[in-house]
């Protein structure tokens, strides 16, 4: 043994430790991947060794590699091994590795439950701590359910170190297992008043996190938190409490009123910026929740704004940023208080930090009024010119548009100004937001009727100068505005001064270099213009001009007919033919203008974006009802599985409906896609315009000269928006003067009535728009429903924690405590055979071996070992349990269960619960089993093959505890009994005696089976495969209903029913080593016949024997 240890440590000297690995990686910079793959091979070798120190070292290295991005999920079981080491050093590494590598999908996690439970109850607080820390990272719903009770117990641990960890981890448990919240909450609440500040702070943390998600359930705690807030001096705790109040106040305005005072006091007194910031935020939340019109709170707002101003003025970028962020919250409810700091915010636009500039921009959005809009936008336009970097410039551009268009152009008093701003923005080079400008142009031109003439003139100018915009079109999204310009000129062509010129501009050959969708609009609107021109010249004497226009179209359109873009080509060829026809008519002097105009008659009205959604469903219409009943399921599905077993019958292979359906569906989907692709009326997800353009082969080879101009282009003849600003100011001045005159008059008239009119700065309403603007509102269907948006995300994990906590706990609401049920289960059909009732040990006539052992020196001990078999299936677990009791009359009761392990086909876990039934203290328990060739008790490193295992606890009177022993099993085809002994010391007040108890562990073949559900088609396939050997069993005189019989087989032997027809059923189970066991059970006249198939004949024989035994006992 000593030699083994020495050998182990010599081996270790040649192993790489973590430092060697890290150093190695750093020295192999060029071929890192190769080096690491050799390292991983070494690690795999190390993990195969028995030495736990070597394994721990390997796992530690793996944790490092995991961080570097290598997959280490294959070593999950080794991590569990290291976790279960009894040495803290290795345990710590194991848990660290687990917390880094495990996630919900890691299947070995379910093996850790008992290990974690053991560590949680370890006398060493650091074992417990390490387990709690690890658990916080990889807790799964199963772990949370199984361990919730243990963790709740730890919340009252004597050591604050454990208490605070337990309290914090409860939050993770609640998230994974919401049922635990109500039972655990009272204790959590107690912890708010824990004497240890760390525990208290942890409890505040958890409740605060809970309350933030579902505040209404925590309102009743407000007084308690109020007390804590006024008494605590710990800033960390204060911040959490104040944040909690921020969540509660919207639900309870009275609370808000109470909070204002202590919060403002804190704001005045604290020097910690983080606390100050939190207070300001909460005060803002409170003030938002209080209905406005509380004059006495304007002081608190002023205080907040002042403090924020200080933050913004600070040289620390972080404070500046947060100040602006908080300011934007105040802005929503108290815009006036923020607007007075406009200067400061405009300053921030010059900050070198882009994120601060963007914050300031956000603020500006809310700060505009009718009065200052033009001025602010002017500043922004200056920044647009200065801005370096297209991202920021694009951001500015969108902000300008957002600011102007917000709430239905509420703040725009002069739309001529706005149009000219938009036109100026088209000078921006390389912006991605051409379409945004375009949609604004369209929107304004359509909805503001009064502006159309002006807009059309501007757009005509844009079209005329289009070559300037499209200079280097490839990387320029700005050409999108031409789309809008062309459409506006065409649609509202009656406002055009010189439609001929615009028409000419739209048909220039250069247009053919524009993206296809824009060309299409050009062509279509050229036709509209043509109609306008015709109408203009109709009746006039010179038909010459009209004919010239027709000629122009006939000459230019062929260019577009050749376009590779279908849309352009189609429209162009249609229109070309139309024009040719008109030309013919013109030559005959037929008046056609009226008819051509009719092609484009009618006005477009804007429709609200959600109009269709808001159409109310007419009464009596049920959209979910079937129009035609769905076809019923095919009946052939119910074919009997009997055929598979009965040898004389031919084997039917059932049609696999699902698969066929799947294929069929895929085929249909494909066909439908094809159809849609070929259907011009089907709206496809539109390919981006750019792409269409590049795909066009006709255009690709045309060399496009790229003009790089460093100076922003000035489009000649454009009115500058600044002029409007000046004009506007003058106009306002004049208005003001007039108003004053009027007011004076009024004053004179009203003199004596005493009502003073506030003649301070002019208010919003005083500014009248330059010309009367009629903004066409978007159309809505009749009886539109009120808006119904914003549902909570149904996937939010916190939703499940919306639980009423004030309701008293019901009896049923307890955390699950996993017990080895020592009372008989009362499920139907098993009453008869459960005879291992611990209360009446004498009654038990053991069906198996009864062992009596006489103590040599002492006279009294008779121990009876009982192996009456009672199984407990637990549908939640993948394992199986075979529960057996050993009863020692006077001192010790023990219950054991054997659990097969799905992950490891060679391991079986035996958990034994020892219960001290005597008045004496039991200690120094040692558990030992005589190994057989097949089954061995796993002993720790270095222990001899005959050494016993020390049970890691002592038992005071009346106490029970659980110990786990792992057995390795080679073959599972035979049942097995292992002899063992348990020695312990019975210590009473005056004496202590050494006791020894012999027992036998019975590993039945059934205990290696695991209840596994199986679908009938997979089952049929399995039987057809022909790999299975068959065997059969007849039971006579079984007098019980068929379903009881099935329940009994399922319950005792871990089978599941695959299919049942009348008195015939197919059943399935699987062994831990993957053997399939299939049964066909038939019954007639008290005779049960079982045909069975399994890929392992001896396993099958033994299982059948055990089944027979079960039934012979009834």
């Amino acid at each position, binding site marked *: 043994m000593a030699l083994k240890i020495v050998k182990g440590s010599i081996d270790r000297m040649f192993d790489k430790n973590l430092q060697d690995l*890290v*150093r190695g990686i*750093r020295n192999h910079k060029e071929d890192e991947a190769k080096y690491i793959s050799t390292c991983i091979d070494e690690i795999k070798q190390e993990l195969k060794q028995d030495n736990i120190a070597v394994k721990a070292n390997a796992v530690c290295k793996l944790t490092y590699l995991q*961080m570097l991005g290598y997959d280490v999920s294959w070593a999950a079981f080794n991590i569990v091994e290291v976790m279960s080491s009894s040495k*803290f050093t290795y345990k710590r590494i194991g848990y660290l590795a687990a917390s880094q590598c495990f996630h919900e999908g890691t299947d070995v996690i379910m093996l850790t439950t008992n290990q974690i439970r053991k560590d949680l109850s370890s006398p060493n607080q650091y074992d417990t701590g390490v387990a709690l*820390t690890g658990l916080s990272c990889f807790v799964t719903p199963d772990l949370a359910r199984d361990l919730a009770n243990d963790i709740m117990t730890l919340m009252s641990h004597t050591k604050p170190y454990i208490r605070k960890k337990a309290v914090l981890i409860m939050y993770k448990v609640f998230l994974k297992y919401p049922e635990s919240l109500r039972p655990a909450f009272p204790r959590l609440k107690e912890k708010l008043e824990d004497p240890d500040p760390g525990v208290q702070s942890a409890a505040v943390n958890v409740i605060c996190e809970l309350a933030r998600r579902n505040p209404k359930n925590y309102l009743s705690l407000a007084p308690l938190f109020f007390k804590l807030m006024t008494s605590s001096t710990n800033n960390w705790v204060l911040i959490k409490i104040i944040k909690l109040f921020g969540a509660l106040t919207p639900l309870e305005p009275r609370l808000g009123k109470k909070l204002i005072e202590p919060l403002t006091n804190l704001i005045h007194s604290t020097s910690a910026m983080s606390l100050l910031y*939190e207070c300001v935020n909460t005060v803002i939340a409170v003030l938002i929740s209080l209905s406005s019109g509380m004059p006495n709170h304007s002081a608190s707002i002023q205080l907040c704004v002042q403090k924020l101003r200080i933050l913004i003025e600070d040289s620390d*970028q972080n404070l500046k940023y947060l100040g602006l962020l908080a300011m934007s919250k105040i802005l929503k409810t108290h815009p006036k208080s923020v607007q007075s700091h406009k200067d400061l915010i405009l300053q921030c636009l010059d900050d070198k930090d882009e994120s*601060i500039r963007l914050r300031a921009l956000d603020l500006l959005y809310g700060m505009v009024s009718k009065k200052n809009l033009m001025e602010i936008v002017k500043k922004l336009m200056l920044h647009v010119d200065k801005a370096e970097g297209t991202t920021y410039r694009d951001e500015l551009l969108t902000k300008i548009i957002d600011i102007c268009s917000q709430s239905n152009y509420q703040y725009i008093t002069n739309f001529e100004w706005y149009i000219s701003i938009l036109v100026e923005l088209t000078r921006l080079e390389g912006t991605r937001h051409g379409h945004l400008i375009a949609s604004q142009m369209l929107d304004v031109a359509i909805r503001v009727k009064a502006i159309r003439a002006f807009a059309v003139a501007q757009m005509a100018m844009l079209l005329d100068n289009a070559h300037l915009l499209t200079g280097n079109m490839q990387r320029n999204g700005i050409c999108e505005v031409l789309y809008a310009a062309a459409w506006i000129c065409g649609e509202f062509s009656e406002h055009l001064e010189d439609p001929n010129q615009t028409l000419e501009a739209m048909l220039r050959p250069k247009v053919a270099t524009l993206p296809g969708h824009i060309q299409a609009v050009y062509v279509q609107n050229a036709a509209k213009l043509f109609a306008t021109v015709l109408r203009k010249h109709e009746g006039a004497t010179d038909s010459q001009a009209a004919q010239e226009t027709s000629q122009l179209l006939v000459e230019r359109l062929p260019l577009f007919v050749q376009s590779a873009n279908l849309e352009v080509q189609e429209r162009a060829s249609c229109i070309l033919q139309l024009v040719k026809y008109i030309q013919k008519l013109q030559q005959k002097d037929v008046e056609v203008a009226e008819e051509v105009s009719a092609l484009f008659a009618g006005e477009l009205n804007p429709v609200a974006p959600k109009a269709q959604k808001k159409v109310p469903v007419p009464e009596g219409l049920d959209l979910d009802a079937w129009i035609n009943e769905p076809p019923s399921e095919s009946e052939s599905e119910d074919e009997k599985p009997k055929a598979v077993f009965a040898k004389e019958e031919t084997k039917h292979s059932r049609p696999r409906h699902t698969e066929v359906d799947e294929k069929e569906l895929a085929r249909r989907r494909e066909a439908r896609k094809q159809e849609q692709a070929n259907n011009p009326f089907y709206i496809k997800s539109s390919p981006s315009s750019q792409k269409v353009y590049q795909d066009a082969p006709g255009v690709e080879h045309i060399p496009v000269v790229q003009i790089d101009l460093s100076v922003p282009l000035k489009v000649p003849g454009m009115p500058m928006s600044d002029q409007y600003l000046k004009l506007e100011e003058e106009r306002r001045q004049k208005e003001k003067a007039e108003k004053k005159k009027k007011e004076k008059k009024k004053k004179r008239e009203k003199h004596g009535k005493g009502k003073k009119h506030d003649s301070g700065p002019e208010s919003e309403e005083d500014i009248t728009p330059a010309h009367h603007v009629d903004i066409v509102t978007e159309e809505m269907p009749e009886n539109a429903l009120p808006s119904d948006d914003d549902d909570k995300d149904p996937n939010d994990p916190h939703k499940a924690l919306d639980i009423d906590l004030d309701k008293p706990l019901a009896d049923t609401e307890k955390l699950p405590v996993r017990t080895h049920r020592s009372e008989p289960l009362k499920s139907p059909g098993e009453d008869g055979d459960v005879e291992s009732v611990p209360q009446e040990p004498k009654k038990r006539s053991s069906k198996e071996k009864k062992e009596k052992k006489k103590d040599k020196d002492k006279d009294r001990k008779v121990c009876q070992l009982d192996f009456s078999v009672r199984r407990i299936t637990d549908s939640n677990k993948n394992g199986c349990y075979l529960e057996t009791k050993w009863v020692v009359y006077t001192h010790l009761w023990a219950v054991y269960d054997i659990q097969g392990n799905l992950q490891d086909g060679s391991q079986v876990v035996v958990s034994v619960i020892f219960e001290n039934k005597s008045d004496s203290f039991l200690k120094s328990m040692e558990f030992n089993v005589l190994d057989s060739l097949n089954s061995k008790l796993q002993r720790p490193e270095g222990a001899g093959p005959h050494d016993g295992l020390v049970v890691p606890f002592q038992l005071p009177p009346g106490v029970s505890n659980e110990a786990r022993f792992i057995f390795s099993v080679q073959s599972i085809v035979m049942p097995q009994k292992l002899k063992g002994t348990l020695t312990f010391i019975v210590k009473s007040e005056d004496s202590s005696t050494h006791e020894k108890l012999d027992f036998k562990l019975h590993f039945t073949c059934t205990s290696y089976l695991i209840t596994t559900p199986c679908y009938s088609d997979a089952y049929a396939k399995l039987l057809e495969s022909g790999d299975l050997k068959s065997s059969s069993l007849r039971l006579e005189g079984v007098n019980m209903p068929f379903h009881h019989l099935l329940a009994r087989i399922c319950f005792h032997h871990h089978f599941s029913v695959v299919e049942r027809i009348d008195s015939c059923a197919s059943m399935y189970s699987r062994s831990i080593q993957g053997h399939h066991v299939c049964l066909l059970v038939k019954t007639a006249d008290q005779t049960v016949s079982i045909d069975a198939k399994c890929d392992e004949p001896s396993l099958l024989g033994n299982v059948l024997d055990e089944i027979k035994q079960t039934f012979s006992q009834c």
Partner: protein
Amino acid sequence: MQFMLLFSRQGKLRLQKWYVPLSDKEKKKITRELVQTVLARKPKMCSFLEWRDLKIVYKRYASLYFCCAIEDQDNELITLEIIHRYVELLDKYFGSVCELDIIFNFEKAYFILDEFLLGGEAQETSKKNVLKAIEQADLLQENLDFQIRLFPGVLGPNVSAESSGLFQS
């Protein structure tokens, strides 16, 4: 807090701690994206940025970036405080900590973090208590070969950049 990442100026990950369950793939994606975003920021910029629906708080100490992701309602300044506190703890534990300490004793760095934060929440606000807990846990741990502390110069090039203390930025 949702997660904490430590990475070097070269974009090498030095430590990661996730307090929300995510798949490895998702974690890698987030890490890559964040490292890029944070490294691209100019030194004079503020420590906060909005990313997806989270807020990122980061701070640079010498050649190491400490980067935390918090939720919308969380307090940025207290998160900075947490980062600073963690650096102080590392500094006290290692004695003028440098990047190499964290590379070669990465498990220690995790242990310290785990004593300081649990499940993304600060569990112990007293530096003294955290260090006490770590020391006692270390006492339990036998002195195996994990204790080897390396000295600059033993290693290859570019060590000097990493070995200047985190506080000497």
